[in-house]
């Protein structure tokens, strides 16, 4: 076991971790932040996406010990200061960007990274970016709409019939 210190959603935490303990296990099992999901555990599905030092990372494919000194943000840390949904979360609700909701935390974290890098993405850019996030309800059209809406763009023509 090694001691690891990191900042998670603005709070400093210090815990003992196993060498083979994944960041997602640390977040879910030690910190009980269960909003970060484990879908495939093979780094394909993206349900475990979090931000580490501001960058999108699959928490199932990084060890907790490697986050020593890092700033980690999970889905629990992205709402507005008053607790209301942030613009991306609200857009997912408004545009029915989820059905079962399992992939949603990863989708929201992934979308936030995209909009930080590319504030006005095209529909094609959104779809390309989401290559690493799988939705088993096949709800991609509305997810893409929600992300376009969150970027302040008109969504009337997105995924038009």
């Amino acid at each position, binding site marked *: 076991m090694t001691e690891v210190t990191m900042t998670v959603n603005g709070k400093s935490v210090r815990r003992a971790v196993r*060498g083979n303990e994944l960041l997602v296990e640390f977040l879910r099992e030690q910190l009980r932040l269960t909003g970060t999901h484990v879908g495939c555990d093979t780094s394909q599905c993206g349900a475990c996406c979090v931000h580490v030092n501001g960058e999108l990372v699959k928490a199932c494919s990084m060890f907790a010990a490697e986050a020593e000194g890092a700033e980690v943000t999970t889905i629990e840390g992205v709402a507005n200061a008053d607790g209301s949904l942030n613009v991306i979360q609200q857009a997912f609700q408004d545009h029915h960007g989820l059905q079962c909701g399992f992939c949603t935390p990863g989708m929201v974290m992934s979308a936030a990274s995209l909009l930080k890098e590319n504030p006005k993405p095209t529909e094609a850019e959104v779809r390309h970016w989401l290559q*690493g996030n799988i939705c088993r309800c096949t709800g991609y059209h509305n997810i893409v709409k929600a992300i376009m809406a969150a970027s302040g763009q008109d969504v009337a023509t997105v995924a038009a019939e």
Partner: protein
Amino acid sequence: MYAFEIERPTSVAEAVTALGTEEAQPLGGGQTLIPTLKQRLAMPSKLVALTAIADMKYVRRDGDTLAIGGGTTHGTVAKEAATHFPGLAGLAARIGDPAVRNRGTIGGSIANNDPSACYPSAALACGATIVTNTREIAADDYFQGMFMTALEEGEIVTEVRFPIPEKSAYMKFEQIASRFPLVGVFVAKYADRVGVGVTGASNDGVFRWSEAEEALAGDFSADAVAGLTAPDASDMISDLHGTGAYRAHLIGVMTKRGVAAAS
């Protein structure tokens, strides 16, 4: 995963010392190694994480050479190599997905030498130099077949040095489920030669398609490739995603597209 310890040195020298332990293994970005460990296909006693070594993360231009630190992520190469070497930046920008590109490193890709990895095709086509903590190795000597390289036990890829081509492009025909190249071809045109590196196709791992290199050196056009005989299908990987003959055919198609797209 089996149990192991993890160390996080902050310099190459410390990493080399840590790797002196029996059954210790270096960990780059972990985007291949961590899934491998989960399947219990490896049983290291200790992982030496290279991600905290700041000196191994850079993209530097020195005249006609682009030097990339072994710990540089694909995402950083995609951004920082774009103005100097667009062909390589384009390759890096299409590896995996955005989250994978934020962790996976060029050193890890080159050290693992997966037969379907993207970077080895560029390293071979460009005649890159693989720099380790002890020596410099020419790409032609470095890649030695599927998952095989010239690296010794405990040797770390600290830098990959690319001569910048006049024109280049990477063409990837994706295996649709994994997004790894079913066949990937890197074409690099220099004043005096052309390099064609092929990944994903051969049972022997990444290779140079020398017939195409010769033909393109005299006439850098898609037509120059059209008349060539495809590489021997019996040497190509044959699996449920594609037969050897299919892959051999794709090498020609991807090379032509690469020549047409080179910039």
